[in-house]
Every structure is written in structure tokens, then in C-alpha cells.
């Protein structure tokens, strides 16, 4: 009755009996996270590191086999860094900057991501999703050892959830029995198929794309360079489009677009997969097949992410096509956004309505991701004859003329969204301030002393002063912002000035715990800062 739905790459949280299973009345928890995927575990880390007790329930005993996500963006690594496991990911991951685009085997052009200088983390790494998840779980174990109140319960399947107004009742099945607990807050991180959504009768609308993709992760000792290769209409006909991308451990991701009307079982037979791979790689390349799968995808999101005491995050809340690597990456931004808000609400330092700003901000993020990934998908798999004609016209032109290259869309890689014009934003009152650090934007990294700026921001509210005075700390209605002061001497590269001052001489930024800019000014003004801090905590 509790059979695995998938096999495991790493068994990290084997079933253990919990005292809750023998309690007379359901035990009450501040936060229960449903789903121990990357988003659920990251949520637990965020809350647990704040000292908030959190229980994660997952219906398996570890991380699923098969890589799924391979591309992790700088922002996800910066968030992981805040949780204390970003470096490990980069060390294991493959850093890449070069991409090549082919059409019918001719190289159309190549591009370099040309990552900006002066960031602690690279623009992207390729890393198998199970590793990404394992680094998060390893960090949970380390945090637990240091006293973080996190619990992960494997083989605990959630079967029913009921919002009782002042709490949420949860029915759980384990290999031994069934039991109940209650929670003040429930985070739904149970993936794209989200049983929780179904239990609450909630919608999940959007667009289904009529195409299937066959993925094969293969291990080969070939000397393909560490680049992203994308073919439109390759003549080897192994797929209508094909992607080749390197992962750690000599593993390569090959992704074939194979059409809508396919016999999944037939296509997944090893001999048939090998036919495609051989057509693409040529007869002389030997390889082992590590993992294969066929997927179709949707671009859609829930109408609302917050439903009273139940809050959705990650794939449960929104799904995008894989082009652009926006799935797990956007889920990490959900966690980053939700963690501090829920923390303040639970500690009684902010009104519950602060959680509505999660709904507002992350829906904004999801819409941006869906828009981008839908556009990529329409370019890669044109839906009409004329769309196909234009697509190929772009490719033909791009081969000869630089002007057409920006129109080629084989996936616009994930960047964090700016919360322009949303409710928590305070004044943008820095004359001459750069647009990239405007209110609502995520803070860009820059060298600071012999380290970097970002690790000094976040976790709590920060008053970032550049060539400006301010008190070391300021508390408004229970919420404290502490100062990080930067002087010209510590900004040897001048990149902090470039990214945060622009044409201004000095600046004072109020930075949120998720490293987004809440407000900025030319100089410190206590009343203005207090008002912005209130606003950023949903107190207006």
C-alpha cells in the first residue's frame, strides 16, 4: 500500500517510527512541509536555520533516481550559499559558458554567456538533480547536529489534509500504520502532480504542449568540449531538435524531441534509444546508458499560491517547460521568498497578511518564467507552418548575419525576477542609482574586501551603506535591520560603486532577508527607514 513510485538514487531518510504515531491526540507542529524534493528540503533548511521547528513528510526514503534538472543558475547557488551548501555544489558541478547552435548539422553560430566579473558564483553549473538534493539534505544533517529543529520523515505519505481554520489536520500513512498530526502552517512542495492540490480541490490551469522529449543520460569518455550544443532539425533525424550537455562524472544529457504520437514503451526500449544515439554520435562512440525517460510538459500555474494556512511552492505551484532551466531554479526563489516571511509571522513580528506578498511576488515570478519558457518552446517546436517558416528564416539569417542571433531562442536561461511595483516596495529615492539595483531587484554580487558582498547580506534585514553614515542597528516594531558598511577602500574593484551607486556619491539601501532591495536613498533618514521596514514586513 506504500509502494515506491520511483527508484532511489540516494536513500537518505529511511523510515523511522515517530513518537507522533503513538500519541493519544494528534501532535501539533508549527510547520509541516509536504514533499522532500529540492524545494521541500530547502524550505526546511530556511526555517530550521531560523530556529523554527519544521517537519518534512515524504512518501519515499530518499532522492529519486534520474537527473531531471541539470542546469542550476547563479541565483539558486547564492540561495544555497545562504543555507551553507553553495560551495559544495559548485565544486561538484560543471561550469560552462560556451554554447553552439546548429541547424541541419550546419553550425549557425556560437555564443559565450560571458559571465560578468566579480561574482562569487558562476552564471550556471550543470549538476545532476540528485546531487543538488543530496547537498541540501547533507546540510540539513549538519544543521540538525548544530541544533536546528528539522525533521525529515521518510515513507510518510500524506493522504488527506483539512484546513480547520486555526490549524490544518494531516492524515499520514506509513509502512506500519496511519496517524494524524496538525500544523499551524502547511507548505505544499509535493511536485507537479501535487496530490495536495487534488485533496483541496484546487485548479492548475495552463497550456499543454503536444510534443514529447526523450532524455538519455549517457556516460562516455568522449572529448566533446564542455559546451551546450543544440540542434534544430538535425539531418540524423534522431530528433526534431536535440540537445547535448555535459554533467559531472562523464555523464552527458541528450534530449531528443520525438513528437506527440509516440509509443512510449517502444521508444524507451534500449535498442531504440541506441538507434537514436548512434545516429547522432556516429557508429564509433561507445557509451553506457545511465538513465532514460520520456517527458511531455505543461506551462501552467495555480491561480493562487496561498490558501489560508496552506502555501504552495515549487512545481506544485507552477510548472514550466524545461527550456531555460526555470523549474527548480524558480522553486528555489519561492523558498527564498517564503522563508523569512513565514518566520516573521510565526514569531509574531509580522501580520499574517505578509504571506499574501509571497503569493503576489512569486506569481509575478511564475508568470515571467512561464512567458519565457513558452516563447522558447514555440521557437523550438513551431506550432504552425508559418511559425516554422519564420523560425527557419531566423536560423538561416543567423548563420550569416549577427542581427538575427538574438532572435534564436533555444531557451532563455533563468535569471531571478525583479518585483517591480509590488506591495512591499519602499521608495526608490537614490538619484542616479543604477536600474539593476532598483527597488524590487535581487542584489547583484560584487567583490568586497577579500570576499564578496552577498554573503554579508540576507538572513535578516540589512542597512547597506556605501560612503554613508547610519546606526549599526535599527529596530522597528520587533524587526531589526543591521548595518553593513562599505567604504571606497574596501571596494577595490569599484564594482560595488558601479552596481550600487551609479552616478550617486553615496547610498543607503534597505535589503530584505532574501537579498532583494526594499528601498534606497541618497542618505540615511531614520523615519524613512522605519517606514520602509514596516512596509517590507506587510505592516501597511
Amino acid at each position: 500500500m506504500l509502494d515506491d513510485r520511483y527508484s532511489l538514487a540516494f536513500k537518505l531518510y529511511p523510515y523511522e517510527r515517530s513518537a507522533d504515531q503513538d500519541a493519544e491526540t494528534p501532535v501539533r507542529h508549527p510547520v509541516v512541509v509536504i514533499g522532500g524534493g529540492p524545494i521541500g528540503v530547502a524550505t526546511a533548511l530556511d526555517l530550521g536555520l531560523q530556529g523554527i521547528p519544521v517537519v518534512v513528510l515524504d512518501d519515499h526514503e530518499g532522492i529519486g533516481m534520474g537527473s531531471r534538472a541539470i542546469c542550476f543558475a547563479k541565483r539558486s547557488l547564492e540561495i544555497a550559499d545562504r543555507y551553507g551548501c553553495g560551495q559544495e555544489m559548485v565544486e561538484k558541478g560543471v561550469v560552462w559558458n560556451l554554447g553552439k547552435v546548429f541547424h541541419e548539422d550546419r553550425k549557425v553560430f556560437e555564443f559565450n554567456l560571458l559571465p560578468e566579473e566579480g561574482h562569487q558564483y558562476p552564471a550556471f553549473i550543470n549538476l545532476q538533480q540528485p546531487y543538488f538534493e543530496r547537498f541540501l539534505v547533507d546540510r540539513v544533517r549538519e544543521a540538525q547536529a548544530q541544533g536546528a529543529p528539522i525533521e525529515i520523515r521518510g515513507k510518510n505519505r500524506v493522504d488527506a489534509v483539512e484546513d480547520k481554520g486555526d490549524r490544518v489536520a494531516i492524515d499520514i500513512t506509513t509502512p506500519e500504520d496511519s496517524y494524524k498530526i496538525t500544523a499551524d502552517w502547511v507548505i505544499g512542495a509535493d511536485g507537479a502532480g501535487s496530490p495536495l492540490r487534488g485533496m483541496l480541490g484546487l485548479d492548475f490551469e495552463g497550456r499543454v504542449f503536444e510534443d514529447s522529449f526523450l532524455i538519455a543520460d549517457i556516460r562516455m569518455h568522449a572529448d566533446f568540449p564542455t559546451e551546450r550544443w543544440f540542434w534544430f532539425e538535425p539531418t540524423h533525424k534522431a530528433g526534431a531538435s536535440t540537445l547535448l550537455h555535459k554533467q559531472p562524472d562523464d555523464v552527458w544529457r541528450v534530449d531528443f524531441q520525438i513528437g506527440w504520437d509516440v509509443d512510449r514503451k517502444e521508444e524507451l526500449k534500449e535498442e531504440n534509444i541506441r538507434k537514436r544515439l548512434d545516429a547522432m554520435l556516429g557508429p564509433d562512440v561507445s557509451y553506457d546508458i545511465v538513465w532514460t525517460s520520456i517527458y511531455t510538459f505543461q506551462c501552467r500555474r495555480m491561480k493562487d499560491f496561498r490558501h489560508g494556512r496552506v502555501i504552495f511552492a515549487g512545481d506544485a505551484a507552477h510548472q514550466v517547460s524545461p527550456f531555460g532551466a526555470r523549474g527548480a531554479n524558480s522553486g528555489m526563489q519561492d523558498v527564498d521568498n517564503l522563508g523569512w516571511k513565514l518566520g516573521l509571522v510565526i514569531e509574531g513580528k509580522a501580520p499574517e497578511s505578509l504571506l499574501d506578498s509571497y503569493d503576489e511576488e512569486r506569481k509575478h515570478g511564475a508568470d515571467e518564467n512561464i512567458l519565457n519558457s513558452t516563447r522558447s518552446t514555440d521557437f523550438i517546436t513551431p506550432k504552425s507552418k508559418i511559425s516554422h517558416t519564420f523560425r527557419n528564416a531566423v536560423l538561416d539569417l543567423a548563420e550569416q548575419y549577427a542581427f538575427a542571433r538574438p532572435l534564436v531562442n533555444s531557451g532563455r536561461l533563468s535569471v531571478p525576477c525583479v518585483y517591480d511595483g509590488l506591495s512591499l516596495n519602499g521608495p526608490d529615492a537614490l538619484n542616479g542609482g543604477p536600474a539593476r539595483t532598483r527597488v524590487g531587484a535581487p542584489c547583484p554580487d560584487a567583490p568586497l574586501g577579500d570576499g564578496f558582498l552577498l554573503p554579508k547580506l540576507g538572513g535578516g534585514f540589512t542597512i547597506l551603506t556605501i560612503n554613508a553614515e547610519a546606526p549599526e542597528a535599527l529596530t522597528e516594531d520587533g524587526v531589526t535591520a543591521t548595518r553593513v558598511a562599505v567604504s571606497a577602500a574596501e571596494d577595490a574593484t569599484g564594482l560595488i560603486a558601479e552596481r550600487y551607486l551609479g552616478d550617486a556619491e553615496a547610498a543607503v539601501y534597505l535589503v530584505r532577508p532574501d537579498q532583494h532591495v526594499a528601498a534606497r536613498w541618497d542618505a540615511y533618514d531614520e523615519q524613512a527607514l522605519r517606514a520602509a521596514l514596516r512596509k517590507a514586513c506587510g505592516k501597511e
Partner: protein
Amino acid sequence: MSDLNLDPNIADPDGFYAKLIEAHEGLSDDESAALNARLILLLANQVGDRAVLDAALEAAKTVGH
């Protein structure tokens, strides 16, 4: 409110028109469609201005049916 020029602007209209038709001579319908697509993209890049391009799209959509 855009600066889309809807007044005559091509110096030698007959010559340009003949050249346009000539470019399609001997092409199949698919090849013609592809040529048109490339031409539109080249011209659009020359214009560059999104407001003008949007106005041109609108102007093209509103006549002819």
C-alpha cells in the same frame, strides 16, 4: 502615436515593386514564404524601433479583409 510612415517614401516605386516580384520568380510557394520571412526579418531589424514595428503589424492586420 508611433512614427510609422504611411506616406509614399520609396523613390522608385515601380522599380522596387518589379524587383520584389522578380525575387520570387521560379520559387515554390514554400520557398517564396521563406524568402518573405527572411525579408521581413531583415527589414524589421533595419527599423528596430518596437513602437514602429508594432504599428506596422497593426496597419498590416487592419486592411485586406
